[in-house]
Each structure stands twice: as structure tokens, then as C-alpha cells.
């Protein structure tokens, strides 16, 4: 008879506890709130799936989700090609390599709320470097506290400045791992620069670019700190992204039930989209 060894539990338990305390238990409290109503005093009433229905039908949620999707799509469209282009332009060996790498990594080392504060000051119309230059030197009216377009441009440029480096570093790692023989063979085969990019560099970067797209999707879809510090969701609600709206409902209005339901819907969307990206991008790998 096969002996059962129960000692494995000893090794698995710490991980189970860790996952339980940092993910499952907090999440279950959210699930708990999402199906109840409270008027304070720790009194809760059963609400069923009512909050979910309310959120899914709410125009406010639709608008925030639309803004969020627009933001994320813009971020991916700009940062991924730009990151790849910068990685291609970076030197592959020599003195300038460490210089470029460190310069690229610097924005990512700055705390998120500091980035928001920096850009806030940078764009102030009368004293900020950019704001003053736009308004007083170029004569273009630029005030993101008044103009939604200016606010949108600013949060997108800020994110591009902060996070394109991540795509650059990943793409660069993919590029330098390509053996020289591939370039030599392509040269002998008479391939154009475009063909080298299309048939050698892009396929070899695919794995790291999958990771880059996934990370940039998740981070930009869940972004909170930087736009909150920069615009606070304004002017009006024009830059109120999903996370900013969620915090308003949960902590501003103290509507725990709707906020919890919205959190779960938010989480489900992020999870589903990540799964979709990953599946689509790795679909061709096993095809023969």
C-alpha cells in the first residue's frame, strides 16, 4: 500500500496563510459588503445582488469605465510602439549603454505621488516651467484645472514619461539577446531593415512584449495616485477614472455596498482583459 506523507502540509501552510491574509480574506470582506446594506452602527441588512445591478446600470459607472478604457488604450498605443522604437535606437554596446539604461530607469524610481505633484507644479500656468512657457511664451492657453483637453493631455503625457521606460527596458532586453548571426544571415539574404524588424527583432521580442503589454495594461487600468494628485479627477469629472470614482464612492460618500460591488466588477474586468491579452498574444505559439 502506498504510504501517505502528510508532511507536505507543513510546507504548503505558510503560503496558504500568506495568500489568505493578503488576498482572500480582504477580498471576502469586500464580497461580504457587496451583498449588504448598512446605515452605520455596524448594522447590516441583506441586499442580494442589488448593488451589482445598480452599478452595472449606472451612467456614472459607464462614464468612468469609458474614460478608463480611453486612458488605457491611449497608453498602450503610445507607450508600446514608442518603447520599442527607443529600444531599437539605443546603443547595443559601449560607453553609452549604462548611461542610457540608468537614464531610462530614473522615472520609474520616483514615487507615484511625487510624480503627480511634480507634474502639477510643472504645469501651473503662472509659475510652472511648462505652464508658463505654453501660456506666456507660445501664447497657447493651457490650464488643466480649467480645460478638460489640457487635463487629458497632461495625464497621458505624464504616464508616458513615467512608464515608457518599462517597455524600453523589456524590449531592450529582448533585442540584446538576439544572436549576431541572425543579423548577418539577414544581411546575406538581402533583407531590408523593415524585414529585419518584422521577421527577426519583433518575433524575438514577442515574449517580453507580451509581459510589457500585460504590465502596462494592468497598471494603467488600475492607476490612481498620479492622476488623483495631478487633477483630482477634474475639471468636473472629466478625468475621473474608475479608481478615482471608486474611492469617491467608498470613502467620500461612504457607500460601502455599491463601492464593494464596483470593486468586484472592476477586478473582474481587469482579470478578464489580462486573460484575453495573454491568450491572444500566445495563441500562435503552439500552432504548427
Amino acid at each position, binding site marked *: 500500500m502506498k504510504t501517505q506523507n502528510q508532511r507536505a502540509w507543513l510546507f504548503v501552510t505558510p503560503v496558504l496563510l500568506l495568500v489568505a491574509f493578503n488576498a482572500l480574506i480582504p477580498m471576502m470582506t469586500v464580497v461580504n459588503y457587496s451583498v449588504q446594506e448598512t446605515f452605520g452602527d455596524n448594522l447590516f441588512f441583506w441586499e442580494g445582488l442589488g448593488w451589482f445591478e445598480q452599478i452595472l446600470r449606472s451612467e456614472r459607472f459607464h462614464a468612468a469605465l469609458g474614460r478608463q478604457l480611453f486612458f488605457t488604450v491611449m497608453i498602450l498605443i503610445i507607450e508600446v510602439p514608442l518603447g520599442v522604437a527607443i529600444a531599437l535606437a539605443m546603443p547595443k554596446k559601449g560607453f553609452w549603454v549604462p548611461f542610457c539604461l540608468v537614464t531610462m530607469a530614473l522615472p520609474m524610481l520616483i514615487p507615484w505621488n511625487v510624480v503627480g505633484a511634480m507634474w502639477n507644479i510643472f504645469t501651473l500656468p503662472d509659475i510652472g516651467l511648462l505652464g508658463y512657457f505654453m501660456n506666456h511664451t507660445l501664447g497657447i492657453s493651457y490650464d488643466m484645472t480649467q480645460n478638460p483637453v489640457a487635463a487629458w493631455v497632461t495625464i497621458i503625457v505624464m504616464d508616458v514619461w513615467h512608464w515608457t521606460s518599462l517597455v524600453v527596458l523589456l524590449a531592450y532586453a529582448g533585442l540584446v539577446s538576439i544572436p549576431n548571426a541572425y543579423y548577418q*544571415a539577414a544581411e546575406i539574404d538581402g533583407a531590408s531593415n523593415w524585414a529585419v524588424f518584422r521577421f527577426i527583432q519583433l518575433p524575438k521580442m514577442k515574449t517580453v512584449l507580451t509581459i510589457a503589454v500585460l504590465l502596462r495594461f494592468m497598471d494603467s487600468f488600475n492607476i490612481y495616485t498620479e492622476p488623483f494628485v495631478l487633477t483630482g479627477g477634474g475639471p468636473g469629472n472629466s478625468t475621473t477614472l474608475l479608481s478615482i470614482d471608486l474611492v469617491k464612492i467608498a470613502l467620500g460618500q461612504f457607500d460601502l455596498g455599491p463601492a464593494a460591488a464596483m470593486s468586484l466588477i472592476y477586478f473582474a474586468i481587469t482579470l478578464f482583459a489580462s486573460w484575453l491579452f495573454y491568450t491572444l498574444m500566445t495563441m500562435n505559439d503552439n500552432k504548427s
Partner: protein
Amino acid sequence: MAQIKLSNLRHSYSPNPSSDADYALKKIDLTWDDGGAYALLGPSGCGKSTLLNIISGLLVPSEGQILFNDQDVTALPPAKRNIAQVFQFPVIYDTMTVYDNLAFPLRNRGRDEDIVKQRVMAIAEMLEVEDMLTTRAANLSPDNKQKISMGRGLVRQDVNVVMFDEPLTVIDPHLKWKLRSKLKELHLRVKATMIYVTHDQTEALTFADQVVVMQEGEVVQIGTPVELFERPAHTFVGHFIGSPGMNVLPCDVKGGAAFFGGEKVELEGAVQGTGDGAAEIGIRPEFVSISSNGSGVAATVRKVSDIGRHKVVEAVAHDQRVHAILEGEAPNHGDAVKLDFKQTQTRLYKDGWLASTPGGGA
């Protein structure tokens, strides 16, 4: 198709070479005839790949010229030279099918799809890869990937030369033999000049009509496999080709005769040049035998290895190790024997270079 001539070629990877040691290629003058099958043989780091990359145009030599049919191509990039090169590790375009991989060099040069199809099918048939034409190249086994790399080299009909840079490194031993004979067969069919770089003597000797042996950036000898085996021009060639390599025994030259440990050894013929002094006797183990009549060099057997078809005997004579390859009966470990050197195959080397002329002696 072209004759390829390398004239006064020197190459250094350092920008300001000062001594000979700075040169990866020291001075190469070499002509590759149209349609020949050549092997470039030498140990790792001898400059073979450098030479190959200079011919293909991936490297520009520090000095000297490369001529294709008397036309100077030294400054031309690889795409303009019309050459093909197969690398050590298979280079395939992962996202393309096998068919598209083979068609790639033709399509880049704007050939009609009809011609592309005709050439790709012909090459696929030669390499026996017709059944995988629609497969994505990324899913092939390493030997098939290397076959496709070779196919891309052979698909253009008008190439001046096809170069192989140690193409069988990543291939399993039992497939190496197959691919090697495939290459030989391809050479007979396409009749292009082929240069095969390797450090493996078996690969070089089976593939090539002419073998170029290199050492430390210099060409040591060019010849047919038989010439390299029988009359190595340098002790390096003797060592490098053959298993075990040639016996190289220190000797003294006095009045045109060679003395090994004080005993006179009959050479194949007269010694070139005058002057006595230290030199070396070179004789292949295949031509060393155990003397039956009591004459010859006294030696003690130290080791006998039975390697199947014959036995390799290692003996010590005058503190020098001498190998002999014997058929049939062999002495035992510790026996005192007399070694007989076949006179017509006993050569003299001065400073490493062959210094005896054939046809002399009794």
C-alpha cells in the same frame, strides 16, 4: 560562380596593431577555384571564421583585397557580393513557414513568384524537406532547422560561393553523418564553390576536395586529404590530422643525416638546406612497425589500446613517446621491442616545416 582570390590579406581586431600577435589573420594569399569543395580546417581561434566573414563581407579586412573573378569586392557589403553563408547555429525566421524561409532570399531580390516556387521546390526536394514546407519553422527540430538554413544558402542559383561555418555543431552525431553526405551530394548537384569551416578533421576530409589548414592566422598547408595525411608540410598538420597524430621526435642533423638519440634514422630522401643542428623527425603511427629482424630503434611498450580494427601501441624510445598502429599481433605492456620506421614515410622537419625531399634513400 566565380573564382575567389584573396591577396595580401591581413586582419586585426584592434585598431592599432603593433606586432604580429595583434593580427587574427597574418598574411593570406589564396585562390579558391570555381566549383571547388574546400574545407578550412584549424583549431578554435586560428582565424577560420574571421577569414570566412571577410570573404562574405561581414568584416572588412585591415589590409589586402578580395577579388571575385578579378573584380575587387573588398568594399562591397554582403548583399552585393552574391554569396551565401550558413552559420554555426541554425538561423531561421521563426514566424515564417519553411516554404517562406526558403523563398526569403529570392523574394528580397524581387524574383517572380513562379521562379521562387520552382527554386524552393527544387531545393526542398534535394534536402528532402518537401513534407514540412507548410510547417512553421519555429517548430522544427535542430537538424531540420539547420537543413533549412542550408537551403536558404543554396536557393539562389547564381551565388559566387556558399560558405558553411561549422554547420554541424548542434546536430546529433547520428544525423551529422547524414547531413555531411547530403552536403557532398549537394555540391555535386549544384556545382557551386563551397567553403566548409570546421575544426573536425573527419568533416573536413570527407567533404572537401582541397583542405586548407590554418594555424594562428596563417595558412599552413593546402592539399587533398591524401596529401595532408601523407606529406604534412608542417608538424602542426601532422599533429592535427590523423588519430593519433604524427610522431614528432627531436633529432640531430649531422652531415645530412638524422640521428635520433644517437642512432641514425634513414629519411625518405635528402635534407634540404645545409647546416647541422636540432631538427625533428616526423613519422605517422601507421608507418611504425615492430621489427622482426632485431634492427631498429629500441623501445619499451607502455600502453596498448585495442580500438577495434587495429591496436594503438604507445612505446617509449630515448625518453620520447612513439605511437604505432599495428594490425593483428601486438606486444604486451612492458615488452622491450625494436621499432621500424618505414623509410619512404620518414620525414625531417626544421623549425616545424618539412625539410626532406622524397625519392632518396636505398
